[in-house]
């Protein structure tokens, strides 16, 4: 059945494979050893030149020429490494030098490639160097989600009207990765996005609105109040939860009234978010209503109500102590646990 000849052939093939694997393994190790040392040495040179150029404020042509002579991969490593530690004018100088050395042009070419991996790399280099370039902005519409996400990361440092508008459209992106990157980038842009975001929230609903509400919650600007009120009345549970959280973050009187209404919402997660929001606002007038939520059928609502009472301070503590002596064992237990919590854990 199994001839010796067949086994011999199989064994020789295997032996060949094994020898090939061993040669590759050790040859790669050897190559890596020399390559890494060379890269380290050259990167150190590049790093020193870049540190001088970026911090001194004047450009020395000889140093730029020396940087140009470095291998391309070393240039990229040195520039990206340095970019992590710089900001403001020093980073602008670094980007200028990168342009002079050719790093920016090569990254631009990568952004134009047909391969997603190259476009991603190009976008990463330009992002890290904070290079303002319409090419990267175009990548916000790239077919690959990783590239769109990277372009969004780049956009975080370029808060222009057109970029913000393009980014807000991406809040409805079907790919989670891109949506998440857009949310992060909008957060990094800070108060400048508040106006356009408020308009966006007033006109949108569903997934896009939910993503926008999360960004708005972190920015906590009063101008989001109207949109939050509107969205807190939608049928989408996720949107109502996010809207309740935003109302708590904004903390205006209209928001407090709506949060009190939301304490009666059909969905326990919305009731819990409303309780949390009232606690965040330290809305002591709602203490008695929050205390009644200690008897809620859902654990998460009782818990959120207890923590909210605790964060309100003395009036809340009074209601918690009263609940200890009440006839509802669930409310009493929750009140006891919340009162037992160390301060740090209660506010976590």
């Amino acid at each position, binding site marked *: 059945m199994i001839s010796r000849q067949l*086994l011999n052939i199989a064994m020789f093939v295997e032996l060949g494979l094994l020898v090939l694997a061993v040669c590759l*393994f050790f040859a790669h190790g050897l190559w890596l050893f020399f390559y890494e040392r060379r890269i380290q040495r050259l990167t150190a040179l590049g790093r020193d030149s870049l540190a001088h150029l970026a911090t001194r404020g004047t450009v020395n042509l000889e140093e730029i020429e020396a940087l140009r002579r470095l291998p391309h991969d070393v240039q990229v490593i040195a520039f990206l490494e340095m970019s992590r530690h710089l900001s403001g004018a020093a980073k602008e100088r670094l980007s200028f030098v990168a342009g002079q050395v050719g790093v920016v042009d090569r990254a631009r070419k990568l952004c134009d490639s047909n391969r997603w991996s190259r476009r991603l790399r190009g976008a990463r280099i330009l992002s890290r160097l904070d290079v303002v370039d319409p090419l990267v902005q175009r990548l916000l519409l790239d077919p690959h989600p990783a590239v769109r996400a990277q372009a969004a990361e780049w956009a975080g440092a370029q808060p222009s009207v057109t970029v913000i508008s393009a980014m807000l459209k991406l809040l409805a992106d079907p790919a*989670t990765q891109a949506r998440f990157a857009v949310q992060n980038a909008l957060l990094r842009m800070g108060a400048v996005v508040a106006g356009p975001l408020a308009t966006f929230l007033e006109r949108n609903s569903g997934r896009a609105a939910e993503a926008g509400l999360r960004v708005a919650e972190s920015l906590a600007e009063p101008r989001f109040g109207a949109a939050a009120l509107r969205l807190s009345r939608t049928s989408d549970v996720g949107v109502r939860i996010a809207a309740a959280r935003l109302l708590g973050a904004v903390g205006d009187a209209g928001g407090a009234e709506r949060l009190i209404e939301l304490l009666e919402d059909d969905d326990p997660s919305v009731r819990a978010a409303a309780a949390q929001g009232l606690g965040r606002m330290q809305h002591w007038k709602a203490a008695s209503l929050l205390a009644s939520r200690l008897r809620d059928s859902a654990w998460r609502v009782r818990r959120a109500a207890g923590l909210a009472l605790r964060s309100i301070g003395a009036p809340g503590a009074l209601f918690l102590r009263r609940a200890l002596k009440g006839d509802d064992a669930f409310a009493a237990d929750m009140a006891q646990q919340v009162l037992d919590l*160390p301060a740090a854990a209660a506010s976590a």
Partner: protein
Amino acid sequence: MQSALSQILLKGQFLVLLFFLTVNAWYLVLLVSSLLELRRHMLLIADESRHLLLSSTLSPTISILAPAFNEEATIEASLRALLALQYPNLEVIVISDGSKDRTVQVLVERFDLVPVKTIYEQRIKTKPVRSLYRSSTYPSLVVVDKDNGGKADALNVGLSFARGELVCAMDADTLIEADGLQRMIRPFLYETDVVATGGTIRVVNASEVKHGRVVRTSVPTRLLPGVQVVEYLRAFLFGRLGWNRLGGNIIISGAFGLFQRDAVVNAGGYLHDTVGEDMELVLRLKRLSYERAGPGKIAFVPDPVAWTEVPESVKVLGRQRDRWHRGLADVLWRHRRMMFNPRYGVTGLFVFPYYVFVELLAPVIEAVGLIALAVGLATGAVDWTIAGLFYLTAYGLGTALTAFTLILEDLSFHRYETFRDRALLFWWALVENLGYRQMTVYWRLRGLWKFLRGNKDWGSMERKGFRPVTAS
């Protein structure tokens, strides 16, 4: 008689050859698949800046579930390492599973714990919780002391306390690399249908550990841990990564896995009466995703690393492998209706049969082959040269595949940098087939036998402890 035996051995030889060809064909497919997957992964993470994207306040909260049983000596260092993980929204839940030593007292003293009223939302039925503690200095730390019920029960208690959308199940003595969670969470952020992700487990024996972090990697010079380094590399880089691309991962190591909390709770949490509770949960999540037409992707991510101490004695290693195989048999038996069932897609048609024929029954077939070979040689029914060549061919291909796994490691993460380490890795890849592999066949057969007899004992794992940094 002699002629009949010859006929049986010849027929058996055909079956063994068929098995051998099928298995190795699968291995080749897995190797190619893992190579492609690794390339895609490396392209995705090249020059990635994780701090901006993944250290955001918008990142989902992760609750780490760390079950501990009699960990008095190591719990402080392990917990400090967990609290220092680089992730913005982190909660750490230590569950003392009825420890009989001073585990809880050590935690109370070192982490400023205060007892709080023991009430919680019981999401899964478990053994009673004795007491609950919160820390005055570490807001994200929760310590639960409960009656002993095993690791599965402790994890289920943790699931009841977890606030995070994601839960990270781990062993108390596993060392997660500082940025491990940032890396591991990627699939959850990038895709909507992911319910669990797993990272790579590496062998810590012989590496240097400082403050709960591995500071210098080294390949062990001792046989058992050395061979296990190669085994772990093969299992993770070659096996799980390969299945990733083929859409059929069904294993996430119990030492380091990240799960969508609600998916696990809705599936009923970890099962108590199995020794393969981690694989059982993953396979159940997968099965339910088909039955309920919901999300069910299990993703393996190669770059987040957790380090674990592997057994250095034959006795303990044997017990571990016997338990693993019992667990595998138990899990496959529980979900046997998935086998060749088109309702379960790729998992039912390819992955499940692979695990039955290649992983579960491999030791039986290998043992039958070895016994038949011995009988054939003793009776003269099989030619010595043919037998020797067949043995070399069978194991030679395995060694070649292992060597290619080492290349995968070297091309991607190359954690073992010195020439000595490379030589040792290759040496252990060669030595593995000379005795060690046959021992694992015996242990796995023993596990199978115990499973058939209904044994569900865990056995004990003796640990030597991590190797501290040596003074220079």
